[in-house]
């Protein structure tokens, strides 16, 4: 891997990290970011780069393990008891981005559905667990400027 490849690889890793949990699209653009490997990848990523230059900053709090800037779901006043899952890293600020003002929604859910092997066509029941959040309003990005938009945490 030459220096240029290394730089590109590091940039791609940064995209992965920055989009680990936050996917932002500007108003009027297609949802989400293109990161599918294949012939369409480059154009999707480029399109995303054009519209998603404003990256947000994470909240200061780090929950360890696993080591991430978030609180697990829980009461925002920190009233979770010691028996509450993930106490004491649950509750408090439900936002994962800082320098933000706006509205938020959070849902920690279990649900089931049907999973299908696309190679064989075999289907079976699967359980799924998600912690899904969105933040809609104004945030100060890493560029130091205010931006309006909606971000989601998956």
């Amino acid at each position, binding site marked *: 891997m030459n220096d240029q490849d290394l730089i590109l690889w590091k940039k791609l890793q940064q995209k992965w990290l920055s989009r680990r949990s936050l996917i932002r*699209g500007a108003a009027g653009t297609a949802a989400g970011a293109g990161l599918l490997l294949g012939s369409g990848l480059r154009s999707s990523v480029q399109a995303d780069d054009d519209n998603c230059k404003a990256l947000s900053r994470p909240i200061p709090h780090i929950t360890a393990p696993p080591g991430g800037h978030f609180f697990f779901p829980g009461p925002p006043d920190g009233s979770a008891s010691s028996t509450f899952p993930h106490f004491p890293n649950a509750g408090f600020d439900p936002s994962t981005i800082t320098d933000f003002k706006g509205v938020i*929604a959070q849902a920690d859910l279990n649900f089931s559905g049907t999973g299908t092997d696309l190679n064989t066509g075999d289907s079976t029941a699967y359980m799924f667990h998600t912690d*899904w959040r969105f933040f809609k309003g104004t945030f100060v990005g890493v560029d130091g400027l205010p931006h309006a938009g*909606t971000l*989601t945490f998956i």
Partner: protein
Amino acid sequence: MPEGSAEVDLAAGTAELHAENICAVFDAFTVANSLSADRPLGFVSGRIDSVDIKWSGVTKSFMGVHDATNHFLGNFSEIGKVTIAVTATTPKITGHGFRFVSDPATTTVNYALIGSERNGVFFS
């Protein structure tokens, strides 16, 4: 997210999220694989074909939360009912080939809330 894809109505105690073709899902398979930085099961290029989440039914309110330690303030409402309809695919080109289609009727809520808040430089 595109404008209009997410809405919160604090007075009504409801929220909605709709999105399609989210193509940056690389940490799939298991919760452990998602949370672990070294991705023991590897990266994968999955996508969320579509998702609809609906929040409704306030069960408890937290008005005037002011947390000087974590630098955020706001008004929040715990939500008792949420449904999620999601279809996600790991394309065959990745070497896997899997599609999951949820049954919204099976949704159970571990914890959910909506609210308005300010944090960081907007905390004051």
